[in-house]
């Protein structure tokens, strides 16, 4: 009964949000457009950077940028689902949902289903564009499973972080509070050049930024040369676990306000 309640709530919330997403271009475009801009502008405009002395990524600059944009698209899938949560609170839908749901943790699981769907769609589109633009993936099937699993962990972390904020603040004005930290943590990493070629304060930030590990592992998978896989997955799992606690706290806060 209890498990059935959780599943039915999760499926209902997930189905509603997936439907809203695919029937509303205004929800599809922002999460997809920015990673595509970054991919086009930097894989196209900066490809010469791979001839900088010390640039040692064998799979080429398109693959190098793809590794970043894939994680970005996945994270945006999570964050933009956080926006949907905030919108549902603002419209009063979530208040009714909280009253009707027998297991409220199923609500977060439902949003997670929507976030995964968004991330998969974003990643599919980015991959198609990248392949058309000449992306060559040297990694085998196991590497690809590792790559996309890591991206989905990043997606889950971003969603849970965003949902914690959305459920605490319950307004669309919380958008920047969700987006800016994720934007910063993504960009304070070796985005355009390998870690060793970073200079100044971004090098220092990238040293302590967990995104650096995820980024290097994803690029390793693409190049067929797995790198820092265990540390990257360990950090991603720890962050996802901390984000679950953060999201549960948000849910409790929303329950108190409901």
């Amino acid at each position, binding site marked *: 009964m209890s498990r059935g309640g959780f599943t039915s709530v999760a499926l209902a919330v997930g189905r509603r949000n997936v439907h809203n997403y695919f029937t509303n271009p*205004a929800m599809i*475009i*922002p999460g997809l*457009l*920015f990673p595509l*801009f*970054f991919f*086009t*502008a*930097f894989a*196209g*405009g*900066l*490809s*010469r*950077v791979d*001839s*900088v*002395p*010390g*640039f040692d990524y064998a799979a080429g600059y398109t693959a190098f940028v793809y590794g970043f944009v894939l994680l970005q698209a996945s994270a945006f899938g999570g964050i933009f689902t956080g926006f949907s949560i905030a919108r549902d609170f603002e419209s009063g839908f979530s208040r009714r949902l909280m009253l009707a749901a027998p297991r409220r943790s199923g609500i977060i699981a439902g949003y997670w289903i929507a976030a995964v769907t968004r991330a998969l769609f974003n990643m599919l589109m980015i991959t198609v564009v990248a392949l058309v633009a000449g992306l060559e993936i040297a990694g085998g099937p196991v590497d690809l499973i590792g790559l996309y699993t890591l991206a989905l962990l990043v997606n889950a972390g971003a969603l849970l972080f965003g949902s914690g904020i959305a459920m605490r603040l319950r307004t669309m004005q919380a958008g920047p509070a969700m987006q800016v930290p994720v934007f*910063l943590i993504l*960009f*304070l990493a*070796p*985005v*355009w*050049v390998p870690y060793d*070629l*970073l*200079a*100044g*304060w*971004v*090098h220092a930030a990238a040293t302590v930024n967990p995104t650096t590990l995820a980024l290097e592992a994803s690029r390793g998978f693409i190049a067929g040369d797995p790198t820092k896989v265990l540390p990257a997955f360990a950090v991603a799992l720890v962050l996802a676990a901390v984000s679950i606690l953060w999201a549960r706290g948000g849910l409790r806060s929303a329950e108190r306000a409901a």
Partner: protein
Amino acid sequence: MRRSTLALQVGMLARRSVVRTFRQPAMIVPALLFPLMLLAINSSGLDSATSLPGFPTDSYFQFALAIAFVQGALFSANSAGTNVSADVETGFLNRLSLTPLRRVALLLGQLAGILALGLIQALTFLGVGVVFGAGIEAGLPGALVIVAMSLLISLGFGCIGAFVALRTGSGEAVQGIFPLLFAALFLSSMALPRNLIENSWFQTIADWNPVSYMLEGIRSLVITGWDGEALALGFACAGGVALLALAATTSALRTRMART
């Protein structure tokens, strides 16, 4: 008498436009913060690109400084468009159309807010550039020219935002053009000089993209000194966009005021 009436009308609407812009931190803060964030991240992240043969300077910060001016100007489109669409949505333009206000006064007044924001942005980016060591090769007169070009670019993008707002009367439509303008910035010589762009399709887009020449005009004053060709192209592109956008906005305003 007529001239003084026009000046009075422009003055009142300009004051309203400037005050309204400064009363909205949500418009000013991102317009200053995001270009500076991108500048800070890119200048450290891409500093190694300066070791490419033919790169015009040994400081990527100096190279990237121009991006802040153009990216900041993109926010003018958003700011102007949002303000004008609010005037349409709240019926302010309807009420104005019942008064003897001249259209040119309304247009000039609205543009004052854009220029005020553009001036603050230009001075802030110049200040940050100088403080963090990007010397302006063309000196103080060059800095003044940078401010002038930056204002012209803000005017052009601001008019595009106002045009969309007047044509559609919708704040959402104004938000919708922001990614397109952002794409114009990204598909330019933003990250590397055009002669160092490897992909021919990207180089072709950058060659045809007026934003490349706006960037290169400002960049020339920062890195090279006085480069007549880069400045002429920069001012021609910025002025051309501003002129076209101004003409389109005037036409849209005529239609909007006639409808109301």
